[in-house]
C-alpha cells in the first residue's frame, strides 16, 4: 500500500519535470548570482589607473594594488575617458598619479607634498572606501618609513574562528534554507489544493487507504527532491565558487530536511485554508517572500532595527538558518544552541496541530 504509493509519488514528481526544473533553478540561480558577486573570483569592480609617473614609489603602489586583488585594473584610459566611464558605471573609480609623484629631490631637505588623485563616484560607497582604505594604509606605512618612525598605536585582528569564512559561505547556507522552504511550502500547498480541485483527494477517500499513509508518502517523496536540491546547491557553491563547508555533509542534509518537514507542514496548513490553487499560491508567496528577506538568508538579521530583529528571529526560517550555519560553516553540533532547536520544534508542533485540525482530504 505505502510502497506502491510512495514509488508512484516519486515517479510523478520526476515526470513533472517542469516543476522539478523550477524547484532546482531558483536556488541554483541564487547560488550562481551570489557566487559571481561574492565568490572567490569576485572583486569590488574595475578601476582605472592613470599613472604618469615613472618613480619607484608609484610603481610599488600600483603593484601592491594589483596584488591585493581588490579590484580589476585597467591602465590604458585617459583621465577624461575614465571620468566618462565612471559616470556610465563602467568603472568604480579611477586613480590619477601625476608625473612628479614619488620623484625624490637629490638633497632631501624638504620633500614637497606628494598628492595623487582618487576620482570617485559618490554613489558607490563600497568601492570608494575600498580605494581610499587601501591607499590610506599604503601611504601611512610609506610616510612612517620616510620619517623613520615606528607606529605606536597599532592593532591586531583575531578571528573568532580559525575557519576561513566569507560572505558567500554565509549566503550559501542561507540559500539551502531558502530552497527547502520554497519547494516545501509552495510544493505541498499547491499540490494539495490542485488534488482537491481535481477531486483526487476525494477519490482517494473512497478507497480504504488511510489518510496518514497518503500524507506520509507525499512528505517522504518530496524529501528526496530536497536532498537532490541540497546536493546541487552545495556542489555549485563548493566546486564552482570555492565555498567553504566545514560541517559534516550528512548532518547538513539532515538539518535541512528537518526544515523541509517543518515547511511541508506549513504547506498543509496553507492548503487547509485555501479553497483554490491560486489562493494557495498567493498565500504561499506572501509567506515565503518576506521570510526570505527577514529571516536572514542574505543579510544578518542584526542589520535590522533592534525591535524588528527581536521579532523576526522567531520566524521559522531564522532559527533553522542559525542551526544550518552552525553545522555547515563551523562544523558544530546542531544542538549547540538549544534555543534555536526549541523554536524549530515549536513551529513543527504548531504546524502539525493546525494541519491535523484543519487539513481534510474531503469537504467534510
Amino acid at each position: 500500500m505505502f510502497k506502491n504509493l510512495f514509488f508512484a509519488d516519486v515517479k510523478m514528481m520526476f515526470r513533472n519535470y517542469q516543476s522539478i526544473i523550477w524547484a532546482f533553478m531558483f536556488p541554483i540561480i541564487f547560488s550562481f548570482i551570489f557566487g559571481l558577486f561574492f565568490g572567490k573570483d569576485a572583486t569590488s569592480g574595475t578601476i582605472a589607473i592613470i599613472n604618469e609617473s615613472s618613480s619607484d614609489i608609484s610603481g610599488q603602489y600600483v603593484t601592491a594594488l594589483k596584488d591585493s586583488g581588490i579590484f580589476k585594473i585597467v591602465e590604458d584610459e585617459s583621465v577624461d575617458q575614465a571620468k566618462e566611464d565612471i559616470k556610465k558605471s563602467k568603472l568604480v573609480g579611477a586613480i590619477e598619479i601625476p608625473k612628479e609623484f614619488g620623484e625624490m629631490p637629490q638633497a632631501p631637505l624638504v620633500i614637497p607634498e606628494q598628492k595623487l588623485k582618487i576620482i570617485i563616484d559618490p554613489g558607490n560607497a563600497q568601492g570608494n572606501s575600498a580605494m581610499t582604505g587601501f591607499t590610506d594604509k599604503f601611504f601611512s606605512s610609506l610616510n612612517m618609513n620616510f620619517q623613520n618612525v615606528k607606529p605606536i598605536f597599532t592593532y591586531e585582528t583575531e578571528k573568532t574562528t580559525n575557519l576561513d569564512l566569507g560572505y558567500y559561505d554565509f549566503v550559501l547556507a542561507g540559500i539551502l534554507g531558502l530552497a527547502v522552504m520554497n519547494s516545501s511550502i509552495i510544493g505541498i500547498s499547491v499540490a494539495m489544493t490542485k488534488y482537491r480541485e481535481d477531486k483526487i483527494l476525494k477519490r482517494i477517500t473512497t478507497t480504504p487507504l488511510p489518510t496518514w499513509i497518503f500524507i506520509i508518502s507525499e512528505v517522504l517523496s518530496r524529501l528526496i527532491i530536497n536532498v537532490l536540491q541540497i546536493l546541487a546547491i552545495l556542489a555549485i557553491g563548493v566546486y564552482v565558487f570555492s565555498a567553504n563547508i566545514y560541517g559534516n555533509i550528512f548532518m547538513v542534509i539532515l538539518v535541512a530536511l528537518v526544515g523541509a518537514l517543518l515547511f511541508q507542514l506549513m504547506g498543509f496548513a496553507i492548503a487547509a485554508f485555501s479553497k483554490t490553487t491560486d489562493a494557495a499560491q498567493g498565500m504561499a508567496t506572501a509567506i515565503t517572500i518576506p521570510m526570505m528577506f527577514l529571516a536572514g538568508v542574505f543579510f544578518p538579521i542584526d542589520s535590522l532595527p533592534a525591535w524588528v530583529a527581536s521579532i523576526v528571529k522567531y520566524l521559522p526560517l531564522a532559527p533553522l538558518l542559525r542551526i544550518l550555519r552552525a553545522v555547515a560553516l563551523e562544523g558544530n553540533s546542531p544542538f549547540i544552541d538549544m534555543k534555536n532547536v526549541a523554536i524549530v520544534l515549536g513551529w513543527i508542533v504548531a504546524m502539525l496541530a493546525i494541519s491535523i485540525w484543519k487539513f481534510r482530504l474531503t469537504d467534510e
Partner: protein
Amino acid sequence: MKKVIEVKNLVKQYGKINAVDGISFDVSQGEVFGLLGENGAGKSTTLEIIEGLRKSTGGSVKILGLDIKKNKNEIKTKIGVQLQSSAYYNFLKLKEIVSLFCSFYGSCLDPIALLDTVGLKEKANSYVMNLSGGQKQRFSIVASLVNDPEIVFLDEPTTGLDPLARRNLWHLISDIKSKGKTVILTTHYMEEAEALCDRVAIMEKGKILALDDTHKLIEQSKNPFTISFITEKKKLNEKIFGQVIKLGEIENLFGKQNHFILHLKTREALNKALVLVQKLNPESIKVGEASLEDLFIDLTGKTISE
C-alpha cells in the same frame, strides 16, 4: 431479492437548507438503480453520504447490512465509486493508476486485463490528459472496479459525452450488471434512465417524488399514450381536427406548424383518435408511449435542464 442498500429517512442539512430531505429507499442485489433529477436536486449528496464521503444530519444508511457510520472502512472495500467529473493523477499512466488503486485494497487484479474490459488496453501507457471525454469516463468507471466491488456507484457517468460515447458507456454499465454487481447511478438524462435502470427514483429539492420500476413509473404518467402526426401544410380539416383535440392534450412540436403530438389518457381514446387522425390524411403518423420525461414534467411541472 437481497437488499444491498437500505436508506431510511436520510437528511442532510447545510445551514437551514435541507439538501436531502428525509428520503428512504432500498436497492436490491443485481439491479441498476437510478437517481434522477436536476442539478441541485440532491442526487450527488445522497450518493456521497451512502459512499461515506459526507456525514448525514439524520436517518440511517446500511450497505450490505453494515451501518455506514460504524463500518465505513469495511464498506469501502466492498464498493466501487466513480465521482462526478473526478480527475486522476496527471503524471501516471493508466495502468499505473489502476495498479496504484489496486494496491489501496491490498489485492491486485491485472491492470491490463482490467483496462481491456473497457477497450482501453491500447491506452495502458497513456496519461489521462491524452484521453477523449468518453475514454476518460470509461477509465474512471474501470478505476472504480479495481477491487471487484459488490456495489458500483456512478455519479452522472455520461454527462457531457456525445451520443455515441454515451451509448458506448451504456453497454459498459450493462456489462457490469451482467456480472451480478449492483449499480446505483445518478443522471439527468431521461432516456438513459429508461434504457439502463430497473428502478428509478425521481428527486426534486431533496425529496423523492416518485420511485418504482421504470416501466411502471412511465405508466403512472398522466397521459401514457401518444400519437405523433404530421398533417399536410396546405389545408387542415378544422372540423375533424376539433374532434381530435377533444380526445386528449395536443402539443405543437417546437415551431413546426403542422407537426402535432397528441397525449392520451386511455387506450380507448387512443383508438378513437387514431381513426380521426387517419381522416386528416397525415403525411406521417406514429403511435408511442409516454416517456420518463413526460412523467418528470407531470411531477415537477418543468422540463429537466442540464
